[in-house]
């Protein structure tokens, strides 16, 4: 009892800081009004649209194919809510700069871990929400509309849209790590996405572009797709994400906060 307890060296967990930032950011995003607004808007729009088509199908006797309407809903989630996803991602790091960064980045965490934690948290939150909404939409459409969906086509369609969203999210977090203010970050990201979408629409047909891929969603959902072409599109999206993330990581690890 009287023996003096020797101070044991603490075995630090190297990846705990990354995990802490990841968890804190997921929790913070799920509680933010932008996220809640996005989810509410998406759910209301999806439910309203599906019920309207369901009414036309059953009461008016007009055939409403699930593939067309689900693809439209998925396109809306990508394009219609892109602005909200921009706000959600472009403010991820800028909103915590200054005094808030003092209380996090002055601890035993490297900039790399902080950036990766933020990036992965936003990816998990936005993609998780999108996939949940997408699967719920697919299941609802199966019961409410004229069933012409294929299981593998539905999964491929979700994967393709998820790849596109991954690029938007990664560019958002990267812009957030580079920009000095959230408003500037959102403006830059939105301009970049619009410009990229516009320029890519001029690509020759043999190259995959977001607008052409989204236009083909009804066929993909029916199971009529070119897997190699879609894999190439997803590959390019993920490569662009990787390059953007590396740039963001490198820049953020060397800048003042």
């Amino acid at each position, binding site marked *: 009892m009287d023996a003096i307890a020797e101070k044991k060296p603490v*075995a630090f967990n190297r990846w*705990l800081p990354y995990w802490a930032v990841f968890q804190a950011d997921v929790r913070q995003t799920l509680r933010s009004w932008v996220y809640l607004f996005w989810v509410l808007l998406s759910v209301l729009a999806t439910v309203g649209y599906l019920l309207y088509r369901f009414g036309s199908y059953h009461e008016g006797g007009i055939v409403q194919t699930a593939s067309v309407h689900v693809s439209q809903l998925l396109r809306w989630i990508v394009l219609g809510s892109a602005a909200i996803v921009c706000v959600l991602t472009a403010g991820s790091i800028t909103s915590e700069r200054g005094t808030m960064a003092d*209380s*996090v980045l002055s601890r*035993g965490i490297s900039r790399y*871990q902080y950036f990766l934690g933020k990036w992965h948290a936003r990816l998990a939150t936005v993609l998780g929400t999108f996939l949940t909404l997408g699967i719920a939409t697919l299941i609802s459409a199966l019961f409410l509309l004229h069933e012409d969906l294929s299981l593998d086509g539905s999964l491929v369609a979700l994967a393709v849209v998820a790849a596109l969203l991954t690029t938007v999210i990664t560019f958002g977090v990267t812009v957030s790590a580079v920009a000095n203010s959230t408003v500037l970050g959102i403006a830059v990201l939105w301009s970049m996405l619009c410009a990229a979408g516009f320029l890519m629409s001029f690509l020759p047909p043999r190259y995959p572009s977001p607008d052409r891929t989204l236009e083909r969603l009804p066929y993909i959902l029916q199971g009529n797709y070119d897997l190699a072409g879609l894999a190439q599109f997803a590959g390019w999206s993920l490569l662009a994400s990787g390059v953007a993330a590396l740039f963001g990581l490198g820049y953020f690890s060397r800048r003042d906060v």
Partner: protein
Amino acid sequence: MAENSSSNMVVETFKLTKIYQNRQIALNDVTLRLEPGCVLGLLGSNGAGKTTLLRLIIGLHRPTAGWAKVFGKFMTPNAAELRRRIGYIPTNPQFPRGMTPITYLDYMARLFGLPKDVRKPRLASLIRAVDLLRVSGDSIAGFSNGMTARLAVAASLINEPDLLIWDEPTHGLDPEARRSMLELIKTLSREKTLIVSSHNLSDIDEVCNHAAVLSHGQLIYCGSLQDLKGRMRRNHFELDLEGEQKAITKSTTAIRALPEFKVVTLKHRRLELYLQEEVGGAAALANVLMTLNDNKVTLVSIRSVGQQTEQAFLDLVEKEESRGFARIYQAEAA
């Protein structure tokens, strides 16, 4: 500040310079060395570069030129292993929304990579120590300045650091909380190295044994607090007298005639003396005491006027300002 070899230094900076976006020179050529056990008081007016220096030392900013070493290794934004040994309190600590003291300290401890079996008992002890036990489940958003400061102290100690960097820890605190903070600094200084920045010179005077003075981004003094006080021009004295009013008035007239004094004023029975520049205080005061003795006036007390550290700080800044272009040669002179 220290003669030890550089590897033993807790903090060492060399020609540390920070220029923000080629627009503002926040820090200019700061070289200092801090040995273990030092309690360094960082002094300077608003915009002098105190916070910039601290942020460079902790790796939140990257130097434009020069370097900062902590525990003998270069500090960079990715030097997480160095920051594990540092406890930092920013000027106005802010906390993530929706957290309680328990969740916040747990988050901070995880940012240091502390495993569960270490961080949980430690955060419980700290919450008790900083007297936040009753509000440990409440949201931080509703906390007063004092409670926020106590939580910031707990967060800075959660990793049991060897070096504490506290940026204006008494800022915005009421007298009671300020007193507690100063007592805590004194206690911690027995086993840790501290850098405390403050506007309040009496705080520095009370808890620090070394001082560094920044003026417009330049380090104009770095050394022991005693040496800083020793540099002070002691040219203002107050003497409380006792005796007949006629004798006191006569003595005052005689003292006014002495060439060593610039201003001599008598208010009731208190004699205020301002020495001429470059005049030895001891000799001048000896003449005053002899004059008083000759007139049978009793001396009740004698004191040097002005808070010593404050006066020394003001003297340093004033001297630096008055050097004009000669400031260019400061480094060479040093």
